[in-house]
Each structure stands twice: as structure tokens, then as C-alpha cells.
């Protein structure tokens, strides 16, 4: 547990001291939301119907770019071997980085959510349900993203490979379910009305985390 905490804190220190990266995530998020605003400013649309896809596309693309460097940086700085030399288990590295990724993406999502309310003033009947769904879905997105980031970090075009590998899998699993559930919440439902879909997202979370836990040893080995 100490090793997970040490890696979690190290990742956050490295990430938040790298101001260039943080600024680029924030600017990218702003650009995504602003693009949607301008795109929809010329057509008539129902904000309640479009709020959910806009929000999840923004979360997904904003978050995806913050996933890429977390393993790639270890390769670029030559610190991966330093980690492997220590007596900690590869799963500690996986969970330390997963929790750090989650923290960073939650912060980013909070920023995107604030921007979203500014650009798209929408009524949310049940904020608690919306936040719960965001947390549950983000765990799945981050778990799979973390794993694919580890796999693609050894590849020369890792920044390109991450979305190529991540988008098809996430789109038809967590994202699709999350968009559907969030649409219902914007339409007035609460989390208990959409429990079946929430359970499905939770199942994806468990599967993605389990696959990462089981594979990380082989991925980090070489």
C-alpha cells in the first residue's frame, strides 16, 4: 500500500509541476466545449437531448490526452527500469498510476463541467446522480486508458496508438452506456431509475481493472 501511495504522490507531483501539460489539458477542454457551443449556435437544438453526448465527448477527449504521458514519461526519462529494480510489485505501479490518473481526470472533468454550465446553461434535476454516473464511468475510462497507455508506451507512435486502441473499445462499452444514462438523468431520472445500465458500467469497470491487474506484469516486463 505504501508503494501505491508513493507512486500516486510522485505522479501528481510530476504532473502538476509540468505546467505545460496542465495548461494544454485545460486549453484543450476549453476548445472542445467552445467548439460545440459555436457549432450548435447556428442550429435549433434541444439542450437537454444534446447535453449528455456533448459532456461525454468532452470528458473523453479531454481525459484521453492526459492518459498518454503517464507511462510514456517513464520510458522517455529512463525511469522505468529504476521502478522495476525496486522490490514493489508491478500491480503497485499499475494502481498508483491508475489512482493518479483518476485524480487528474476528475479535476479535469470538474473544470469541463464548470465550462459546460457556462456555455450550455442546462437544468440538472439531480446533480448527485449526475456526479455518481460521472465517477463510475470515469473509473472505467481511466482503467482501460491506463492499461492501453502502458501497452502503447513502448511503441514509437504511442500518442497516435493510444486513441486508435482506446476509442473503439470505450465507445461501445462505457461511453455508450454513460451517454444513455446521463441523458436519462438530464431528462429527470435519478440513479436508481437507471440501475441496470449503471450496473453494466460497473461491470465494465471491474473487467477493465481486473484485466489491467492481470496483464501489467507482462506489459512492464518488456
Amino acid at each position, binding site marked *: 500500500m505504501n508503494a501505491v501511495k508513493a507512486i500516486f504522490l510522485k505522479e501528481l507531483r510530476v504532473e502538476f509541476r509540468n505546467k505545460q501539460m496542465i495548461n494544454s489539458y485545460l486549453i484543450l477542454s476549453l476548445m472542445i466545449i467552445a467548439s460545440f457551443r459555436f457549432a450548435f449556435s447556428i442550429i435549433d437544438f434541444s439542450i437537454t437531448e444534446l447535453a449528455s453526448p456533448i459532456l461525454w465527448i468532452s470528458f473523453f477527449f479531454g481525459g484521453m490526452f492526459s492518459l498518454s504521458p503517464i507511462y510514456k514519461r517513464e520510458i522517455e526519462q*529512463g525511469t522505468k527500469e529504476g521502478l522495476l529494480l525496486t522490490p514493489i510489485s508491478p500491480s503497485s505501479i499499475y494502481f498508483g498510476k491508475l489512482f493518479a490518473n483518476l485524480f487528474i481526470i476528475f479535476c479535469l472533468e470538474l473544470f469541463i463541467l464548470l465550462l459546460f454550465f457556462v456555455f450550455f446553461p442546462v437544468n440538472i434535476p439531480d446533480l448527485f446522480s449526475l456526479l455518481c454516473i460521472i465517477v463510475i464511468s470515469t473509473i472505467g475510462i481511466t482503467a482501460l486508458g491506463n492499461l492501453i497507455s502502458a501497452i502503447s508506451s513502448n511503441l514509437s507512435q504511442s500518442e497516435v496508438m493510444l486513441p486508435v486502441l482506446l476509442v473503439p473499445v470505450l465507445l461501445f462499452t462505457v461511453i455508450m452506456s454513460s451517454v444513455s444514462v446521463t441523458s436519462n438523468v438530464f431528462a429527470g431520472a435519478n440513479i436508481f431509475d437507471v440501475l441496470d445500465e449503471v450496473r453494466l458500467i460497473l461491470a465494465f469497470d471491474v473487467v477493465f481493472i481486473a484485466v489491467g491487474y492481470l496483464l501489467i506484469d507482462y506489459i512492464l516486463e518488456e
Partner: protein
Amino acid sequence: MPDKILVANNIKKSFGFLQVLNGVNLTINKGDKYILFGSNGVGKTTLIKILSTTLSADSGELKIFGKGIEKRSKEIKNKIGFMSHEPYLYSELSAWENLDFYANLYSIKNKKEKIGSLLKEVGLYHRSNDRVGSFSRGMKQRLSLARALIHSPDLIFLDEPYTGLDIKAQDILNNLINRLNQEGKTFFCITHDISSSFNIANRYGILSKGQIVYETEGVEKKIFSEKYIEILRRESF
């Protein structure tokens, strides 16, 4: 009978069609200060990575402290330290934070005292709070040595440790190696540079064409240099 702490038998490693190591046999005894010389690209770094368990061999047997390394046990990892030519340091963190991070991974008790004394020993205590990104190559090397020693390992691997070090830093490194060796620590070092490293060792080897072709101990620098040059000349044919 010397206490063998590392025994490598017939270690082979290739990358694609390139056979880098072609049957390396090596024994390191407790208290040795062993330097393996070899020209650039001869497989020194590949060998030291295999011996330090960060890279797997294609075949051969490796025992460290009497145990096979197949499982890469925590026990072995706790007993070995590795100062690579990559410093394994995070440029966004300070010198102290880097050592603190590794101290946590090794579950070091009394880490504050340990980190403080190591930073003093490598002459970087006054730069404890400065980010490693602002350090010179030589300072990173010294901090990397402190990182490799944070868990007081019994067997310490050094990969080209003198690269980028000025004379003062070389002196610090040599004194540290000698002091730790007197405390019973064992060193295995690889380098191509005879001039700066020869005097610290008590055993010497030469790696050529994927094998250790010559081993000796207690030899004069001049005689060893002649042998080394002869092997390098043969290598080029």
C-alpha cells in the same frame, strides 16, 4: 573458499539476429570490486542489465545470493543496487524528493537520516531542494549513486559510473566505493575507460565478442592495458 554471491553460467542474449552475449560465465565473490572492460557496443550494458535483473537472458543460468532470479524475488531486489548511465531520476522532483520516493518503494526506516547522510556523502546536500532537471550530468550521476545506495544493498552494479564526472566527483565516488567495500559491500562495474577506474578494483575482466575472454586480479595497470589493447585489436578483425 570465497563466498560466491553471483554466479552466471553460459548467459546468452540476442536482439533480433544480433547475438550480443554468447555464453558469458562469471563469478563474483563477496567483497569483490570487479571491473569489466569492453569497447562500445560489445554488450556490457546488456550484461549488467541481465545481472541486475532488469533484463531477461535468452538462456543460461544466473544465481544471485544462491538463488535463481526467475521469480525476481523481493529478497534479491532488496540486496542489489544499480547505478546505470540512465540516472533513473525524475527531473520534475527535487533531489530529496527523488530519494524519498525510492526510499518509500524500498520501505526504508529512518529515511530522513538516510537521505540526508547520502546527500552529504555525494556532495549534494546543499542542493537537496533543487529540481533534478536543473542538475548537470555529473550531479545527476552522483545523485543516481545515492539512489542506488538508498536501501544499503550488498551487491552494487555500476554502469559507466565515471561518465560525466569531474575529478572531484570521481574522487567522491572512489572514496565511497572503497569505504563501502571495507564494510563488506561488493561492486561490479562496467566501463570502457581504464584510466579513471582501474585503481579502485581488485578483479578485472574483458568482454569481447559476447564473452568474457580474459580475467585477472591484482595485475599492474600497464600490463592489463597492453592485454586490453591486444584484445581490442583482435576484435576489429
